[in-house]
């Protein structure tokens, strides 16, 4: 380079190329860690899903057999389809956290005395570990002494064994999951509401938009970023649902509350599960479902990046 011709001191190579080298030095540790622990394992899982392996001995290459099993093997298929079906239910119902969160946020978006404390207390469920949430709700649903049974009792109704009935169990667990998730969405919306342009509200008032119409036509569109995040985290949360199922039912009764994430754990690592390859195949399916959402998320991010 000719740049140094004027400067007497010989600059080091590093110094000259600082701007192009620096980002890689900053990135190196993070990328290495991430590749090592996240990216490579994803591919390893893909690979593993082609093997039959009990986690102890030698793995045996079986090609797409594990995926065939998902489809053909009747006993697994029951379990697999139950899990898949439950995942869909999770996805659909978990999204209720968004309107529920919005509703609570609207309810709390006031400036009366002590409202800050109320807001934080409403947010509580989100900070608590899902393990504890699971326990709390297991007791809440307990058919002999649970708060639910007791409450139904006060109204003269018979208790329902939510977690013991395959018709209700998934909904029961989802409800438990909705509790912290709603709190999360509530906070997102509360901050979103803070950022709503007051002038637009005023313009709306002059335009005679009131109540629900104001909410629908003017406020909600402005809450789009908050809704988007709420949507993303809720979807991800729904597909990752594991802790609650593990704590509340272990997939039971007779496997009716499993979702893919739990089923995979069960076949691969639980007490009676020794089918690592099959588990990996389930994980790959789950990954593919999630990938749709990831791709959507990245795509909208890409648009935004290009748009600026």
């Amino acid at each position: 380079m000719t740049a140094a011709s004027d400067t007497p001191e010989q600059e080091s190579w590093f110094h000259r190329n600082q701007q192009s080298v620096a980002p890689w030095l900053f990135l190196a540790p993070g990328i290495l860690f991430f590749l090592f622990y996240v990216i490579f394992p994803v591919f390893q899982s893909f690979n593993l899903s082609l093997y039959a392996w009990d986690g102890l001995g030698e793995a045996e290459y079986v090609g797409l057999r594990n995926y065939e099993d998902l489809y053909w093997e009747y006993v697994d298929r029951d379990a697999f389809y139950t899990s898949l079906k439950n995942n869909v239910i999770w996805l659909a119902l978990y999204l209720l956290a968004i309107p529920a969160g919005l509703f609570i946020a609207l309810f709390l978006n006031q400036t009366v005395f002590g409202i800050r404390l109320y807001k934080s207390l409403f947010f509580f469920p989100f900070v608590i570990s899902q393990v504890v949430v699971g326990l709390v709700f297991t007791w809440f649903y307990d058919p002999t002494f649970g708060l639910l049974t007791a409450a139904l009792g006060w109204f003269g109704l018979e208790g329902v064994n939510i977690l013991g009935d395959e018709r209700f169990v998934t909904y029961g667990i989802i409800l438990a999951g909705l509790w912290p998730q709603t709190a999360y969405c509530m906070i997102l919306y509360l901050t979103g509401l803070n950022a709503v342009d007051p002038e637009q509200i005023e313009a709306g008032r002059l335009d005679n938009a009131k109540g629900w119409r104001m909410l629908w036509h003017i406020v909600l569109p402005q809450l789009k970023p908050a809704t988007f995040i709420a949507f993303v985290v809720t979807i991800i949360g729904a597909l990752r649902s594991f802790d609650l199922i593990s704590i509340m039912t272990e997939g039971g009764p007779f496997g009716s509350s499993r979702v893919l994430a739990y089923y995979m754990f069960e076949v691969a690592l639980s007490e009676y599960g020794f089918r690592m390859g099959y588990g990996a195949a389930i994980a790959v399916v789950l990954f593919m479902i999630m990938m749709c959402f990831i791709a959507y998320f990245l795509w909208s991010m890409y648009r935004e990046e290009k748009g600026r």
Partner: protein
Amino acid sequence: MTGVTLEGAIKRYGETQVIHGIDLTIEDGEFCVFVGPSGCGKSTLLRMIAGLEETSEGTINIGTRDVTHMDPAKRGVAMVFQTYALYPHMSVAENMGFGLRMNGVPKPEIEKKVKTASAILKLDPYLDRKPKALSGGQRQRVAIGRAIVRGPEVFLFDEPLSNLDAELRVDMRVEIARLHQEIGATMIYVTHDQVEAMTMADKIVVLRDGRIEQVGAPLDLYRDPDNRFVAGFIGSPSMNFLDCTVKDGALHHPALAGPLVPDTPIPDNLSEITLGIRPEHITLDPAGDQLNIDLTEALGGVSYCYLSTPKGDKIIVEERGDERSKQGNKTAINIPTKRTYLFNKNTGKRIK
């Protein structure tokens, strides 16, 4: 169509009172501009008329209706906000038609009205765009269009042009003036831009600290200000003020070539008087040497000459023509006595 009348309008935020009993009549079809320094209550007053702020005391009438406690949407007013407050998720046409839609106007009628408004404002090519895809000036036009569509009796503007750059501001200013002529509705316009106030208003209301300082036609305020505040506020560059001592019926000041006997008689009881004189009325006298020329800014057609006395009084003089003064030289000034204004130094009241 109809005018606006305020009687003893007062606004309090909790304990602090920010509008102190405003009495004001704005005629039907008049273009009324509120000016005043920042924080003087222009926006608050406007928003009280719009109904976006409650009126603590007093009454507001639009036409013959007492609207003091009426819903904003019911008052027959439309407002154009400084930030435009366009709904970002709606197209231009939807933005303009939204108010009608909320009031249950049938679709074809909305479309017709939007068409009319967009024709007036030359917005036809943009009707399907989102506000994001418009320039600042176009957005402002949409905001105005939204106001027009609803056919209000009174238009309220809160610094509608302050977010535009200088050039666009000029264009939009002309456009709004044209619009006022075309529609003929009552318009109330808040600005802190002198030029806007002077050029657009039928009537200027100068506010200070929640009180009216003076109301009048622009050139009346320019030529005949009631007090030092208005005199200094209207006109750019500002009027020069010199605190003079009174001796033998004449004004004395080191910056002056000699004692100055103004056309207006000086009251006997005052020993000190503030003399006001606009930059464009002073001429330089290169023969004198009372004043230093600190700086001359040549803008092409005009120059502004910054003068100072050894004691620190500053005077600005406007120069025209091809010959300009030179920075660093000394000079004196000539003041035509008929162009002077006298003010009570303590109260700021004009002495006429």
